[in-house]
């Protein structure tokens, strides 16, 4: 599925390049395609395939796994990836396209955390949660003229939906790699020396292979603070929660980040009451404060949720001997005991820890930092002396730069670009993030405080504009007017610094902004792009149109940005 997407993207990129060229030929002086700058199309991050000829090479490569490039220099493979999660998968597909002979080593199941214990099954649960919410919201239903009588759910049915989705996506992933000829090697991979990896599983002899380049993509596991005893039944992590073996009446969720927030959405929709335990003084600490505040109003306050902030869960004892789950709370600053909660279950959503043990990093003089593999901006692994280890890269959760599935994949593609001889640095500020609550939250770039800090340091001004979902036709048609979009930008240059959205389908809306950041599109350019009416995308359209720039002569040297040119 992904491979076809890649090919079609290349094809269309080629086509539009061609189009841009002929356009340029007809109109000398300004290469502009509907407000998007022409340079954008030659941006390194889009340089997936550069010419039709190259496509053919990629196809040939697909069939033979690197026959074109061969595995010169006596290496078994051009590229060996340790870990077949979303990051490793993305890297493998791109490597094949680039004509590299590729193998991927997986000690558990293909798909990694995202597909098996993360994004994918949680989306299945959240899909159920969204529908339950709608059906239970009598007022909402009535206002649309619908009548529903007492909606209910079958827990096992919901759990099966999540599980089926995970297996489906897992087999899609496996098939896509097999179809391209990526060798999937089963076992736990260990780096035994320079460009040398050993892998094997219990009961089988270990095998050693050599590779011109190695990518570590081993991902992460749920982080459990000390003092918390996990029994998998009443005190558990997201790994267990996604199986939905029970729906407790009252569940404490330790941590109010993405994971905690999404699970609160699921559990409250299924009838649980939720208590958040957050160590920082604010719920949802990673979000833009204004968005977090609004999110609290929309996602927390009206629901059966309460919270304790500024406290650590010092000790959590699973339910046993007829006693409930006990959670000892201590003040995050003074460490004094504050309260003991008695709940039916506790979900530990305090973040994720890198899974890098047993990788054999000591064999190549690499020391992890809190488990993370140190890398530079090109994902090249750094050794204990701060030198780059040649031919060794680390992507995804294992390097801790940005612990998101699509970030890992983007980093993998970036690495493959470098291996193929094209320097590439991934702009992490262009990577969007989303939280799939109802309504959703999404963001890209800097938060307002981050932007202001940067502005203070670098001496520029920051402007903020906001638009509301209440003013959007489609949102109102859906009766889902809750939400805002917020744009943080430089009024002097029109550079987009960050976009934050809370509202219906926010996760799908963010890409216009993230693409703009990735391509360097400025506010004054993107505001001329046309959006279909009536769609939710008009929320962003209005946002860009609302952004005012400082009038300065010569700021926009190209008067050709007039919309009529398109």
């Amino acid at each position, binding site marked *: 599925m992904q491979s076809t997407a890649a090919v079609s993207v290349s094809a269309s990129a080629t086509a539009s390049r061609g189009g841009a060229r002929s356009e340029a030929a007809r109109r000398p002086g300004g290469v502009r395609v509907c407000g998007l700058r022409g340079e954008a199309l030659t941006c390194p991050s889009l340089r997936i395939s550069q010419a039709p000829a190259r496509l053919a090479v990629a196809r040939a490569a697909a069939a033979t796994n690197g026959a074109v490039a061969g595995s010169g220099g006596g290496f078994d493979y051009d590229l060996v990836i340790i870990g077949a999660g979303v990051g490793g998968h993305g890297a493998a597909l791109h490597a094949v396209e680039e004509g590299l002979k590729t193998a991927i080593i997986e000690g558990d199941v293909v798909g990694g955390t995202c597909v098996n214990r993360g994004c994918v099954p949680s989306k299945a649960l959240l899909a159920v949660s969204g529908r339950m919410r709608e059906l239970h919201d009598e007022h909402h239903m009535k206002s649309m003229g619908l009548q529903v*009588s007492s909606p209910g759910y079958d827990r096992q049915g919901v759990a099966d939906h999540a599980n089926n989705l995970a297996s489906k996506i897992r087999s899609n992933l496996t098939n896509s790699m097999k179809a391209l000829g990526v060798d999937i090697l089963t076992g736990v991979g260990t780096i035994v020396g320079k460009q040398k990896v050993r892998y094997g599983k219990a009961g089988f002899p270990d095998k050693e292979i050599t590779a011109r380049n190695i990518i570590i993509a081993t991902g992460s596991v749920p982080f459990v603070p000390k003092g918390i005893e996990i029994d998998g039944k009443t005190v558990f992590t997201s790994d267990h929660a996604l199986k939905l073996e029970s729906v407790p*009446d009252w569940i404490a969720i330790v941590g109010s980040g993405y994971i905690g927030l999404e699970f609160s959405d699921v559990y409250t929709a299924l009838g649980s009451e939720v208590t958040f335990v957050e160590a920082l003084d604010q719920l949802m600490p990673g979000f833009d404060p204004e968005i977090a505040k609004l999110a609290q109003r929309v996602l927390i306050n009206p629901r*059966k949720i309460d919270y304790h902030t500024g406290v650590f869960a010092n000790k959590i004892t699973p339910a046993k001997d007829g006693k409930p789950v006990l959670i000892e709370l201590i003040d995050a600053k003074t460490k004094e005991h504050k309260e003991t909660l008695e709940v039916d279950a506790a979900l530990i959503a305090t973040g994720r820890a890198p899974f890098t043990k047993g990788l054999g990093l000591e064999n190549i003089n690499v020391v992890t930092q809190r488990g993370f593999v140190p890398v530079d901006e090109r994902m090249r692994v750094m050794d204990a002396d701060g030198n780059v280890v040649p031919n060794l890269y680390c992507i995804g959760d294992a390097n801790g730069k940005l612990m998101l599935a699509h970030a890992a994949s983007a980093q993998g593609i970036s690495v493959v670009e470098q291996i193929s001889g094209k320097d590439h640095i991934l702009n992490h500020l262009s990577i969007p993030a989303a939280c799939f609550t109802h309504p959703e939250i999404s963001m890209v770039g800097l938060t307002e405080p981050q932007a202001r800090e940067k502005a203070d340091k670098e001496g520029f001004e920051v402007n903020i504009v906001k638009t509301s979902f209440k*003013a959007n036709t489609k949102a109102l048609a859906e009766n889902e007017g809750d939400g805002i979009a917020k744009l943080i930008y430089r009024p002097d240059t029109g550079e987009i610094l960050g976009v934050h959205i809370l509202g219906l389908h926010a996760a799908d809306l963010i890409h216009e902004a993230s693409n703009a950041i990735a391509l360097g599109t400025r506010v004054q350019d993107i505001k001329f792009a046309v959006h279909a009416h009536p769609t939710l995308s008009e929320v962003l359209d209005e946002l860009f149109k609302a952004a005012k720039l400082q009038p300065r002569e010569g700021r926009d040297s190209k008067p050709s940005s007039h919309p009529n040119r398109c």
Partner: protein
Amino acid sequence: MVHPSDKLRRFGSRSDGRKRCQVVRTINGDWRHGPTLQWAGRLHLTLWFVSHSHLAPPRRAPDSAAQPAFSSTQRSPERRVISSVIVHQCAMASLISPYLSVPTAPGRARLAAPGAPRRRRMAVVRAKIREIFMPALSSTMTEGKIVSWTAAEGDRVAKGDPVVVVESDKADMDVETFHDGIVAVVLVPAGGTAPVGAPIALLAESEEEVALARARAQALSQGQSKEPSPPHATAAPGPPPPAPVAPQATKGIATPYAKKLAKQHRVDIAGVVGTGPHGRVTAADVEAAAGIKHKQKVAPPPPPPPAAVGPAPPMPVLPPVPGGTVVLFTTMQAAVSRNMVESLRVPTFRVGYSMITDKLDALYEKVKSKGVTKTVLLVKAAAVALTQHPVVNASCRDGKSFSYNNNVNIGVAVALEGGLLTPVLEDADKLDIYLLAQKWRVLLKKARMKQLQPNEYNSGTFTLSNLGMFGVNKFDAILPAGQGAIMAVGASRPTVVADKDGFFSIKSEMLVNVTADHRIIYGADLAAFLQTFAKIVEDPEILTL
């Protein structure tokens, strides 16, 4: 005289939720029995605002100024929509109301000093220490959180200054004061929560009174801490049980929803016996303590539409219609139903009048292009007529007095999807028809989006209901609680009329029916009012002045 929010607090703190007779003191210092109320327990504030006007003292009492008036209404709609989601709306909200502070505060003060109630009372009345209350910033707001105090203790504030930023269930709002004074004591600090109507600060009029206010604040807090111990029989009659101002620490374990419900229904959770697993207090326990029967979703037979006529206090429940569908009232419909039944207590009568509208129709044709509707013209005509017949603009609140209103605020019945609202055109006598029309458009829009603020639908002194646009030729209306009269207007229809010389001609004729409270408005009053009204309608030039 009891202010609704005040009453809400008192009733809310009761757990039985049944009948209760209030004895409170009016601003004049005499004692009076307040109305006896059937408190069904699950009465939300939303309902309150719709139905409370018959309890409330005249909104424009000479010294009250407790009218929330949102300056945001002056903004353009787009801007308002956005700002209502995002940030600080500037709200001129309610704040200070002496007639409120008198019944509550001395009652508590007396707890501290039971020996000298009379002297204290006099001091209070003269000293004008006003309480600043948690305003109701939206119709669904039951409590508010203080985001920050923009004025600190000891600050001198002038009328219109923002003093506090309040976070409601919808947005943060700057709240302004309507009185000059000194912020003497902040009762609920920033970050604290208080139910709507609870005092959040005391405002003294002068430096000398600051100390007095402090003493009262102390008495207030002492009164509260003493409250749980019952032996106060010697205290003056009917000291109201105070509402918890800030959420108290709960000792027992209660689930998140139980805590929310307890706050909402003002149930002291410490006093609720938990029946959940491990003895925890569950939502069901709180509901039981608040006297709420859980709504049964599957079983259909809750009350049918109000076919039952007759002042029988227990609402008769008819057997369900076989094969029919039962749809529960929305909050708004429940409020309408309640108000309608409530109106049966008032002895009403009706007077009809027919009037020729050719000139009015001609005027309408002229001003139509400027957005003036027939309804607006009729409102203006009624307002002008009311200024000449103030008794028709009055109301009877206690069965023994006339309550004259200083303002002519005309409510206009608007049919909404599944409901009925009466947005109020305030000061309709003073505004010209173009301004009225503009105001009306804003109100209509708000009404349709369910964004009317309480004062925009419950401050009416007279109501107009126009069904002319449907071709109805005559009907009569039910008098809403708290008002003296309501006018029902039918359509103008070409009618053959004979003039005094016996000549026949065809004129447009309109039938107007007014329903009035006969305790204060007598037949001749109404007839005279209608005569004036008819004159204006038949010679409507005055409306354009």
